[in-house]
Structures are given as C-alpha cells and as structure tokens.
C-alpha cells in the first residue's frame, strides 16, 4: 500500500498517456475501416 500511495506513484499517474503509436494506429485503423451496408446487413472492410 505504501508503494501505491507514494509521491512517486502520484507523479507517475499524472503523466499517464497512451503511446503515440497506439493513437496513430487507431487513426489509421479508422481510416482503413469502412462499413458497407447491404440491404439489412452490414459488412466491415479493412482496406490497407
């Protein structure tokens, strides 16, 4: 518990952010993903 609430840990919690690569991956994934509507069905297509 002492470890969890130490000052070092609190400082560490402030700068918590996902890696830039993760964000870039998500943006690329979003651009590549397209949903095709076909009558009542929906298809997902990932374009590289």
């Amino acid at each position, binding site marked *: 518990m002492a470890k969890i609430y130490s000052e070092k840990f609190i400082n560490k*919690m402030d700068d918590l952010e996902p890696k830039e690569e993760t964000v870039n*991956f998500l*943006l690329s994934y979003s651009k590549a*993903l397209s*949903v095709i509507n076909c009558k009542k069905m929906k298809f997902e297509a990932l374009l590289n």
Partner: protein
Amino acid sequence: MQNELITDATLVSSYIKGDEGALEVLILRHKQKIYSFIYSKVFDRDVAEDIFQDTFIKVIRTLKRGAYNEEGKFLPWVMRISHNLVIDHFRKSNRMPKFDNSGEFSIFSVLSDTSLNAEKTIIKEQVENDVRRLVDKLPEDQKEVLLLRIYNDMSFKEISDKTGVSINTALGRMRYALINLRKIIDKHNIVLTN
C-alpha cells in the same frame, strides 16, 4: 482552442459523416482520462495500452456501423466500454493466471522449486556414490553398525540385539565409523555437498 469549443456530440456526428479529423480530436481530448482510468485498474502499462486500443477499436466500429445513440455523453460511454474490457481482462487472467515480475516483490522469493534440476541430480548421484565407496572402506564391524543405524534406521538397542554386542560397543563402533569417515574425507579432500 477552437477544438475545445466543439462539443463531443458535434465531433461524433462529424466523424459519423466521414470527418476522420474529428476522431483525432476526440482521442486527443480524452486519451489521458481514459488511459489513466484503465491504468488505475490494471497497474500495467502494456495491458493498459492494449485495453485502450481495444476500447477505441470498439468505439470506431460502433460509430462507423451507425450503432451509436447519443443518449448519454461520449466520454461516459467510452469509459463504460473500457471498464467492461478491464473486467474481461481480469476474467481472462483469472482463467489463465500469469506471473508478473515487474514489481518489487517477487513471489519466487517465498516459493521455490524443490525438485532437482539435471545438474543437481547428477551431483546428488555422485555424492551418493562417493559416500557408498567411503562406507565400503570402513572395517566390517563399524560398517555394519553404521548401515543398520543410518540406512535401516534402527536404534542402538535393536542393533545390539541383532549383532549380539552390547549397546556401548555398538555406540563405540558408530563413533569410530564416523571418525574414520571424516579422516578419509579429510585425507582425500573429498567434497560431499550438493
């Protein structure tokens, strides 16, 4: 600054209409809050990263499929998704426990594998062979008492009954057997440790 003025709801509808930039704004706006929330539950950067990624993959798919309804706010919805994924993660790790040695405490400091590895098994065999050869070098009467005492786990009373000598003689033979063994070990510099 301008980004701050655009509400989440507007950005979401822009994104659904095809504005990819809107998603970037949404991610950048909320990434710290969502990532910190996940990290506060899992305490592992890599796992938090994976869950963060899976959360937004779900968000992207839901939005692109048009399955999102603006009943609540965007951030609480994303938080709910990440919360569910954190629960899934713990369910999975309960089914398949994994050892994480990143913290200061190592479970292996209190748990150890008591079975011998290949090297230790060979050493143990060598030590046992050496002891057997040393015992063979003892005079017959001393050897007999030692074998009965150590290997047959007999008391000196039982040994005296079996060999037909007094208990004191049996004790004396045992004493000399040990002294002689030590002498041979010292003389030949034999190491009998595993």
